[in-house]
């Protein structure tokens, strides 16, 4: 057992004990206040929850966010490539062309599937 291991173990165990203790102490000694606004599920925004939780709702934003993420990562990936383009040479260039073409096929696929049509 190295000293670091004992020390880090002590820190973790200490945290694991301290956090629940503080939570219990807050619950016991802390001041309490009620009120209609405070007990509502959301304090602002949706003030009234309508319907049951199993109703259908649109996932349009979610899909777009996922697609955005893919092309965002593509853009991020191009920065380090651009910085070291000279060292990588033709090989690096071909690699990047292949990568972008693969993403392009993905883009063609989602376009043909009509994912980007806002219905």
């Amino acid at each position, binding site marked *: 057992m190295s000293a670091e*291991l004992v020390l880090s173990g002590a820190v973790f165990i200490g945290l694991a004990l301290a956090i629940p203790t503080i939570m219990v102490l807050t619950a016991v000694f802390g001041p309490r206040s009620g009120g209609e606004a405070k007990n509502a599920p959301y304090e602002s925004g949706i003030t009234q929850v309508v319907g049951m939780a199993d109703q259908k709702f649109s996932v349009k934003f979610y899909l777009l966010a996922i697609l955005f993420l893919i092309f965002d990562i593509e853009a991020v990936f191009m920065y380090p490539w651009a910085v070291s383009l000279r060292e990588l040479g033709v090989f690096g260039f071909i690699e990047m062309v292949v990568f972008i073409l*693969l993403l392009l*096929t993905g883009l*063609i*696929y989602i376009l*043909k*599937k009509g994912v980007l049509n806002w219905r």
Partner: protein
Amino acid sequence: MQDIMAILPLLATCAGAILIMLVAAFETFRREGISILGIGLFAFAFFVQLTVENSSPIMPYSAIFNGMLVTSTFTKAAGLIILACGFFSAIAAQTYFTQNRWFVLEYYCMMLFAACGMILMTMAAELITVFVALEIMSLAIYTLIGCDRRSVIRSEAVLKYLMLGAFAGAFFVMGSVFIYAGAGSTRFVDIARAVSEGGFIANPALVGGSLLIMVALLFKAAAFPFHAWVVDVYDGAPMPVTGFMATAVKTAVFCVFANVLLINTELRDGWVGYLFWISVLTMFVGNLIAIGQNNLKRMLAASGIVHSGYLIIGLVAIGSDTVSNGAVIFYLAAYAASTLGIFVALSYLGGEDEKRIRFDDFNGLARVRPYSAACITIFLLSMAGIPPTAGFMGKFYIIAGAFKHGFVALGVLGIISSILSVWYYLRLIISMYFREPQEEFGVSEMTLAPLGTFALAAAVFAISFIPVVI
């Protein structure tokens, strides 16, 4: 250039998947056309894999791509098994879709992507590559399980598998982090060097990391403490997908497992004691689950757990000398041929919406469809390990390997488990041969699946002639 040549089968599979994706997007083919295309692409990738020159001996580490990947006869054989599994699952799927009247155009695309991940996984020689391959494979398999979106049971299966699979993936990444902290590298070769220099037990990060990785691999291999998902997920997946999962995924996972254990003898010896118990418990718990089942698909899922147990026996003895790799890959081939055979047969005998699924539903099959019943009997006998079949030879090599390397108790327990398993395999044979038929077993259109079943029945015998040195 040599590197690119070595991964040609991977590139062929991947290009095929992208081709089908585009074809599906433009809707140039309907169901039949795209099925034929999918089957053809699997066959093409199989022949590419067959022609890849691979002269290097079975193991450690003829590295390509700066040690990121390895190729050997071991990975080549695994690639061949995976692509053959894909080919026959695609044949099964073609018939299955004809019979069940639902179809998604992207089905074969996802199958090819899954195969792509699996091939990458067998070649991976570095933890991050293994993780990427694992996720490519798993994500494609999740999609395949849930591709019939109207069905509740499929959704349940995919949810269970997705949640637990994500856990397993997280365990793997966490383990990689620990190992990187302990060994200073994620490459298998460098980890081996770090272990042999610093020792395994003396380094807590390595112990913890390999424990976490072991958890992830045991989960994917459906071994004892992490086997509970198997029965529900296999039962919920469509028939051809279950066959693909039970065979190809298992092949890929056991290849990685073997590669991880082969890293270093010290690392392996640290694990052999535990793997002994895991293997014994996997075999007997799997048998207990299988004996209680009334549903054929659930029985096959449980028998998949049992076969994982036998494969772990092979892994315990692995690396004591390099050739016991041969026994593991032989067993995988034998198991794949017989299990996939049953699933291909069930894809056309199961009827619409898999209505024939219990043992009793197959009463008297031998009177009505004698050839199909004979094929199923061959597959079941092979899985039980009855002599002239590949399953017997596979068990023989594995158990003989265990005896040779001094694991006598393990070998004996393997034989006992194998005798126990005859119980539930024979039940189906009795139903098929000694009961009166209650229905016609009408099949809408005779398509490729019966042919595939006969080919696999022939393969069960053919594989047993492949020589393995133990």
